[in-house]
C-alpha cells in the first residue's frame, strides 16, 4: 500500500464532512449512526454537509473529508463518483463494497448480462454495469478502510487522526496474529475448520475464531496473502473444489487474490463435478470478467 498523502489542511473554519452512498446495504454508514454520544460529539466538531440517511442532504456540497460507502455498479454511479471526487479533498472508502466491490461483485464471476436478463422480466427498465467495482477503480482514493462492515472504532479513529492533522494508521496484520494476541485457540489447526484468518487483514478483532468458528474473510486479503497455499490446504481438509471456491465468495470476491482463487477453483471443479442445479452452467468463467475487476492493488 502506498503512503497516503498528507491529511487535508483545514484552516480556521470547521472541517466539512460528507457521507456518500453507492451500491451497499447501508451497514457501513451505521458505524456513525450507531456511534451514540460520539456521533453527537462529531457533529459538534465538524460540519456534516451531506449525510442523507441522517437527514442532511446537499449532494453537491464541497467537503474536506468524504466517507464513501458502496461499490460502483451503475452508469449513474460512475458519473456521480467523479463529481464526488471533484468536490472532496480526501476520500475515505469505507467497507468491502467501496474497497473491493462487495458481495454484489459475485456477479463479476458469472455472466452478468445473462444474470440480469434471467432475473428481470423487463431488463430494459434496469440500468446496471456488468461488474461491481471498488471506488478506487474509478477515482483516486486517499484511504481505504476495509471490512464488512467497518466498525465505529475504525471510522472514528481515522476521522480523529485526520482532524488532528495526522495520516490515519491502517491495519496490515493478518487475523492470525490477532488471534495469537488474544490467546484464541486456532480453529484451523485444532478443529480443521477452513479458516481464512491466515490471509485476511485484521481490524475486526478476530471475532469469528473468538466464537470458535472459521473466519470467512469479510475484511479482505492482507498484504502478500498466501491464498493459493491456503486453498490447497482446504482441499486437503476434505472440501471439494466447489466448496474451496466458495470460501472466497462472500463479501471480498472482488479483491484480486480472492477473485483469482474463486475463479481457479471453480474451473478446477468444472470437469469433474456436474454443474450445480440450474446455476453455474451458464456462468462461463473466462478472462473477461477478471480484467474488469482489478479494484485496487
Amino acid at each position, binding site marked *: 500500500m502506498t503512503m497516503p498523502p498528507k491529511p487535508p489542511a483545514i484552516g480556521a473554519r470547521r472541517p466539512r464532512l460528507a457521507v456518500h452512498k453507492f451500491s451497499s446495504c447501508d451497514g*457501513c454508514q451505521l458505524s456513525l449512526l450507531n456511534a451514540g454520544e460520539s456521533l453527537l460529539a462529531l457533529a459538534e466538531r465538524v460540519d456534516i454537509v451531506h449525510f442523507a440517511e441522517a437527514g442532511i442532504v446537499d449532494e453537491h456540497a464541497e467537503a474536506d473529508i468524504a466517507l464513501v460507502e458502496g461499490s460502483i455498479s451503475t452508469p449513474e454511479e460512475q458519473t456521480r463518483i467523479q463529481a464526488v471526487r471533484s468536490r472532496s479533498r480526501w476520500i475515505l472508502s469505507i467497507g468491502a463494497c467501496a474497497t473491493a466491490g462487495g458481495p454484489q461483485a459475485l456477479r463479476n464471476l458469472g455472466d452478468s448480462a445473462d444474470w440480469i436478463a434471467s432475473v428481470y422480466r423487463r431488463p430494459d427498465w434496469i440500468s446496471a454495469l456488468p461488474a461491481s467495482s471498488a471506488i478506487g477503480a474509478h477515482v483516486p482514493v486517499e484511504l481505504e478502510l476495509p471490512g464488512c*462492515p467497518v466498525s465505529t472504532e475504525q471510522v472514528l479513529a481515522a476521522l480523529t487522526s485526520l482532524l488532528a492533522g495526522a495520516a490515519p494508521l491502517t491495519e496490515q496484520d493478518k487475523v492470525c496474529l490477532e488471534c495469537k494476541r488474544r490467546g484464541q485457540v486456532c480453529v484451523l489447526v485444532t478443529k480443521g475448520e477452513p479458516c481464512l484468518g491466515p490471509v485476511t487483514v485484521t481490524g475486526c478483532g478476530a471475532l469469528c475464531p473468538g*466464537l470458535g468458528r472459521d473466519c470467512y474473510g469479510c475484511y479482505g486479503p492482507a498484504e502478500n496473502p498466501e491464498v493459493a497455499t491456503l486453498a490447497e490446504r482446504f482441499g486437503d481438509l476434505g472440501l471439494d473444489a466447489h466448496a474451496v471456491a466458495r470460501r472466497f465468495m462472500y463479501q471480498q470476491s472482488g479483491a484480486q487474490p480472492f477473485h483469482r482463487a474463486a475463479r481457479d477453483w471453480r474451473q478446477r471443479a468444472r470437469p469433474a463435478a456436474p454443474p450445480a442445479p440450474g*446455476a453455474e452452467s451458464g456462468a462461463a468463467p473466462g478472462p473477461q470478467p477478471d480484467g474488469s475487476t482489478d479494484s485496487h492493488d
Partner: protein
Amino acid sequence: MTEQRTRRIDVPVLARVEGEGALEVTIRDGRIAHLALRIFEPPRLFERFLVGHHYSELPDLVARICGICPVAYQMSALDAIERLFAPDRQSPPARWVQRMRRLFYCGEWMQSHALHIHLLAAPDFLGFDSAPAMAARYGAELRRGLALQALGNRIISLFGARSVHPVGARAGGFRRAPSLQQAGALAAQAEQAVPAAEDLVRWTAALPLPAHPQQFNCVSLRHPAEYPMIGERIVAESGLDISVDDFEDHITEFQVPHSTALHALLEGKPYLVGPLARLNLNLDRLHPGVKALLAELDIEFPSHDMYHSIVARAVEILQALLEAREILADYAPQEPAHIDLQPRAGIARGASEAPRGLLWHRYDLDSAGIIAHARIVPPTSQNQPRIEADLADALVGVGLDEDEATLRHAGEMVIRNYDPCISCATHFLRLTLDR
C-alpha cells in the same frame, strides 16, 4: 374553476430513509396525474448469487442484504431451512435455541426502532431537519434513545460478536453460548432500561402527530402464545390465516418501471406490514407490562393512522426489552449452542418479522444442501403500493395548491412512517408472472 396548470414536485434524494429513493409527483389541473416512489437503488442480485451456495453459508451471505436488519435476514433464512429439515422443535436444546433467537431478535428490534424513532422520524414531528440539529433542544430525549439503541446493539453482540452483520448465528442455533457473566451484565442493563423505554412510549404518544386515519389491510405473522417474531402463521385483518408455506399462493409481486424494488399485492390489493400492522393484529399477545402502559395512553389500538407507527415502534421497543429482560434473567448456557440437522432436498420456506415487517424467504435445495433457487420478499417491497396510495391521499389532504416545500415535507413524512429500507427492497428483482 381552477386554472389549467401543471406542477411537478421532485424530491431527488430522500433524507432519513435507508437507501436511495426519490419521490415524483405531477399535478395537473388540481389533481395528481402521476405519483411514483422511485427507487433507484442499484440491484445487487442477491437471489441470483445465492444459487450454488450451501445452506450453511446463508447466515453470512443474506445478512448483507441489510445493514440495519441483518438478524432478520439470518432468522428468516434459518427458519426456512429448519422448517424443511424438520428437527424436533420440542426438545429442550431446540427450545433453548428458539428462546435465544428471540433474545437476539429483540436486540435488533430495539436498535432498529430506536434508530428510526430518534434519528429518522422524530425530527419530522419536532420541526428539525436532522437529529444532530435536534440535539441542542432535545438532548435528553435523544440520549435516552441512543442508549436504548446501544443496548439493542449489545444484545445482538452477545451472540453475534458485533451488531452489524453479526457472526454467531448458524443453522441449528448459535456458534457459541454467551457466558453466564456476559448475560448477567446485560440482564442488569436491561432491568435498568425499563423506565426509559416506558418513558419513550409516553413521549412518542405525546408528540404532535398529524391525524390521518385511512383504510388499509394489516398483515403479520401470528404465534399461538407470543408476540410474533419467527415463523408460525401469516394472518391479515381481511381474514387471511395461512401457513408460511402458502405465501406465494396469495401474494404476487410485479415489476414497475420506476423502481428497482418489486411491488407486492395480497389478493390483488395493497397491504401493510410492519410495527403498526403487527401491533394491530397481536394486541392480545403483548407482555402484561406493555398492555398496562397502552391502557393509559390516549391512543386507541388497533389504529389505522400511519402516524401512530412511531408509537407502535416505541411499544415494540418496550415489548422487546421486557422479553429480553426475562430471558436474560433466567439465562443458562447450553453446549453445544446448536442442534444437529439432517439436510434433505426440497423447498424451504420461512418467515420472520423484520423490524420493518414480514420478511419471507424460499430456498430450493438439492440433496447436498446446495441452493438451486432463492426468493426473498422483503417488507419494503410489500409496503410500496401502500406507500404510493397513502402519498396520493395525504397530498390531496394537505391541499395540492400548497407550496412545494409543504407538499415535499408532507410526502417525506408519509414515506418515513413506513421506515422503508430501500437497500433491502431492491435486490430482489426477478422474473415474475407476465400480465
